[in-house]
Structure formats: structure tokens, C-alpha cells
């Protein structure tokens, strides 16, 4: 349209400035600090080469953190990607009535702060008197200690995130499902295609870019959201059983005061996310629909 003039640069300047300072500069700082040993407060800072990385990789903690992260991602994908996908298909193609109403109500939990959600679920999970315990007692069962057992704690915390995020992902997926060409589906119906064939050959391909987007935000944001209930409810426990890649970065810096290791974890995490973002971008370039 227009060639960029000198004053045109000014439009980008504020955004570019703050992105550089608070998004790109920190990435650089992490890389540098990951080669040093420092406790954040003292003036003593020592160059240690790559030993932060080698130390991390040699601990058992590193592997349990990776396993926990994978478990979190799996639970989140089931509740915030697979379920919204199925539900939006049901609402868009099986049901005729109530679309708007479901949309509004399913979205409601997304409005809550995760701080509120954490406290609310802490009570819901209360193994002695909480509502889930009350339900289980009707069937004569004892409530497990939702936040104190390994693995179960990951499920319990994922459920808090699932509760908040489900509705948001659901309306994104629903919009994609609704935008699939109606003519195409009608034409396929006339040709005698079954629902299953229509789903596989028309709906899944046509909603794939949205599905990939929802997949990516489920993983990326899910892991970031997880930090909040973990910090409020378990502090990474029991015995680091709910610590994950995103949380240990915080822990090493602000709880253990080992800045170098925190930075090393941050660099490793960032690498994983870069791969993820690159993949998303590649898919986007191919699939996205441009108006111009």
C-alpha cells in the first residue's frame, strides 16, 4: 500500500521498544546468566561455564520434572483440546437448538482468576469435609488426598485449569466448526456420504488450522496457567510431584535463589517453545486465510 515513511516508523516504535526490553532482552539475559552462579542478592557472581546445564541434567529431579510436564500436557490436551473438539462437533452438527445459550454458559468459568479458582478447588478437594468428599461418602467411599498424592496431584491441578480454559477453547472450536461450508456438506449428503465420511473428509480438514491453534494454546498457556495453582496450593509438592518445567524456573530463582540454574531451565524451556512456535507459524502460513 504505502511505502514506509520516517514518521511511519513511529507507529511501531512503542511496541517494538517494549517488546525488545521486556520480551527479547530477558531471553538474552537468561542465556548469559545460565553460565553463572549467583544467588540474586549478593554481589558475588561466578562464571561456571556449562556446569549449570550439566548439573541439571544429572539430577533425578530433571527427569521427574520432564515426566510431570508431559503428564500435565496430556491431561490438559484431553480436557481442553479433545473434549472441546468433540463438544463443538456435537453442538454444531448434531444439535439444532441452544447454540448461543451453551456458548455463553460454557464460557463463564473463563472469567475467573486462577487465584479464585485455586481457592475454590482447594475447598472442593478438601478430603475431610469438601463437596467431593461428601459425594463420595454417599457411596461409602473415602476421598483421596487430591493434592497430596503423586500423579493424582497433577490430575487435580490440571482439572482446575481445565475448568477455567474449557469454555474458551470450546467457543473457538465451535466457531471453526460453524464456518465450515454448508453447501459442501449438503452436497456430500446428497451424494449419500455418511456423517463419519463428512467428518473425516470435510469437517476435520476445514477446521484444522483452528484445531492446531487450540492445540498450541492448550499446551503453551496450559503450562503457564498451571504455575498459579501449583504455587498457591502445592508449592511444587508433594516432594516436587507437581513441579514442572515452567514452575521450576520460578522456584530456582525465587525460592532456592539459584539464578544460574533457573536461567538454564529457562533456556531449555524456551528452546522447546521455539520449536512449538515455529511449527505453529509454519502451519499458519499454509492455512491462514487472508482477506487482502
Amino acid at each position, binding site marked *: *500500500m*504505502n*511505502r514506509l515513511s520516517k*514518521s*511511519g516508523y513511529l*507507529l*511501531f516504535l*512503542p*511496541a517494538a521498544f517494549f*517488546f525488545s*526490553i*521486556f520480551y*527479547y*532482552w*530477558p*531471553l538474552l*539475559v*537468561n542465556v548469559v*546468566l545460565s553460565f553463572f552462579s549467583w544467588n540474586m542478592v549478593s554481589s558475588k557472581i561466578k562464571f561456571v561455564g556449562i556446569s549449570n546445564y550439566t548439573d541439571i541434567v544429572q539430577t533425578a529431579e530433571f527427569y521427574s520434572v520432564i515426566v510431570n510436564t508431559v503428564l500435565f500436557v496430556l491431561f490438559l490436551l484431553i480436557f481442553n483440546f479433545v473434549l472441546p473438539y468433540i*463438544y463443538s462437533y456435537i453442538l454444531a452438527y*448434531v444439535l439444532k437448538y441452544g447454540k448461543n445459550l*451453551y*456458548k*455463553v*454458559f*460454557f*464460557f*463463564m*468459568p473463563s*472469567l475467573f*482468576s486462577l*487465584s*479464585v479458582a485455586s*481457592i475454590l*478447588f*482447594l475447598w*472442593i478437594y478438601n478430603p475431610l469435609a469438601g463437596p467431593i*468428599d*461428601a*459425594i463420595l461418602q454417599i457411596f461409602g467411599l473415602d476421598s483421596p488426598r487430591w493434592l497430596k498424592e503423586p500423579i493424582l496431584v497433577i490430575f487435580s491441578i490440571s482439572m482446575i485449569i481445565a*475448568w477455567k480454559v*474449557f469454555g474458551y477453547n470450546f467457543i*473457538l472450536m465451535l*466457531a471453526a466448526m460453524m464456518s465450515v461450508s454448508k453447501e459442501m456438506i449438503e452436497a456430500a449428503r446428497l451424494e449419500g456420504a455418511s456423517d463419519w465420511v463428512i467428518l473425516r473428509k470435510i469437517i476435520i480438514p476445514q477446521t484444522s488450522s483452528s484445531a492446531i491453534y487450540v492445540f498450541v494454546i492448550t499446551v*503453551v498457556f496450559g503450562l*503457564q496457567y498451571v*504455575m498459579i495453582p501449583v504455587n*498457591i496450593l502445592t508449592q511444587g509438592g508433594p516432594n516436587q510431584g507437581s513441579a514442572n518445567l515452567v*514452575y521450576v524456573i*520460578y522456584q530456582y530463582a*525465587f525460592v532456592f535463589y539459584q539464578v544460574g540454574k533457573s536461567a538454564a531451565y*529457562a533456556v531449555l524451556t*524456551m528452546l522447546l*517453545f521455539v520449536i*512449538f*512456535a515455529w511449527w505453529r507459524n509454519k502451519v499458519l502460513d499454509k492455512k*491462514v*486465510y487472508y*482477506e*487482502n
Partner: protein
Amino acid sequence: MKINLKKELIGHIILIVSLLICLWPIVFLVSASLKDLNQIFQYPLNPLPENPTLSNYFTVLDRFPIFQFTGNTFFIAITVTIFKIITSLLAGFGFVYYRFKGRELLFNSMVLTFFIPMSVLIMPNYLLISSLGLLDTPYGVILVEIVDGMGIYLMRQTMRSIPKSIYECAILEGASPLYILWHIILPLVRPSVISISIMFFINAWNEYFWPLLILKSKTEYTLALALPMFISAEGGSEWGLAMALAVLTSILPFILFIICQKYILNTFIQSGVKG
């Protein structure tokens, strides 16, 4: 589409049951905030409080500087929203209005920040804010949140849908870019700008982690930070009070959503879905 009664029925049953599961914690939250502690413990499943009481709310208001927390939260949320909208509007407009080498690269480098996990950034940003002497001030929280990759993406997406001829007419008239943005484009995209603002506001209102690191003294606390103060180590907590504060924390986002739900949902749907 023909209605298949059996399918319709099964579908609705699945959705309604799931919806009840989703909404149950909300109902529970409100009803517990209206119960006294005895009732909370004795009848955790009863959604209707016997003798509903506002005493939890009065106690919370009495014991904690709720108005100050609310004021702090509001100040941070509104300032963050205004700055995010300004930076996103300017950059989003620039990406639509100008064509130049490296445009896509610049655009991607801004939008992809949306996918950088916050926890990777917090320690370096904390050091920076601390060296600027902004720890324990709302400005320390705000400064880091002046830009938003998703905001720029959404703004560009919205402005792209404006017909090119409108831009061309304005340019022929000799209008400057800022004039075009302010007087011609902004009125056209106002609904999207409003709903993006609401989205920013709700997110900033609800934020927990970054304020937690920056704000140390209780007088600076936001509502989301104040809430976890209620839980003591072993959960011997005052649940009624916690639930009352949780309701107070959540009420504003809810009102905003109910007033503008159509706008908000549509913005997500129109713009968010394609990315």
C-alpha cells in the same frame, strides 16, 4: 438440516450434564459465601443456604482493606488496558497501512511473543524492575505489560477487513496516517476495540503471578493476591470469608461479560479463530 429427535436429545443431555459440572463450582462459590461456617461444613452439597447471611461479606470488609485492594487492582488493570490498546492500535494500523521490506518479519516477531512462556521472562524482568527501583509499586507491574502480541494481531486482523478504498480516499485527500487512524479507522473498528479492551481488562484484573513477585506490602496488594491469604498451612481456613472475597474479586469481570457478551464472544470468534 433435519432434526433427528433421538440424537438431539442425547446431545443435549451430554451438554447439559457437562454444563452443570462446569457451573457447579460457581453456584457453590456463591452459595458458600452466603452460609455460615457450620452450614458450609455440615451441608457442603446443598446449593441453597439455609438462612442466607451477608455476615461473611461484612466481616471481610471489616477485617481487610477491600476497597484499597479493589482500587489497586482497578488502577493496574485500567492502566495496562489503555497502554495495550494504544500500542496495539498504532502497530496494528502500521502493519495494515504501510508496505515495507521485513513487514512480515516484524509482525511475527511481535505476535510470536504471545507464545513466550511468562515464567521464562520473570526473573530477568524482576531484576530489571528492581534495578529501576519499581519493586513494590503498581508501576513495576504495569511497565512490563504495556504491549501485547495478541492485541497487535487482533487489531491488524480487524483493520484489514476495512475496504482499501477508504484508505485510498483518505490518502488522496491528503490526510496524515494518524489522522486517518483516529478519525476514519477508529470509528469503524470501535466495537472490536471495545471488546479487545474488555478482554485485556479482565485478564489484567485476574492476573496473579507477576503482581505476586512485584508487590510485597499488603497495602499494594490486588484482589487476586489478597485471596490466598485466607488459607493457612493446613487448611484450617475461614472458608466463608474466602468465598465472599472470591465473589467480590470476580464480580466485575462477570458484569462486564454479561453486559458485552455478544461483543466479546464475537471478537474471539472473528479474529481469534483464524490465527
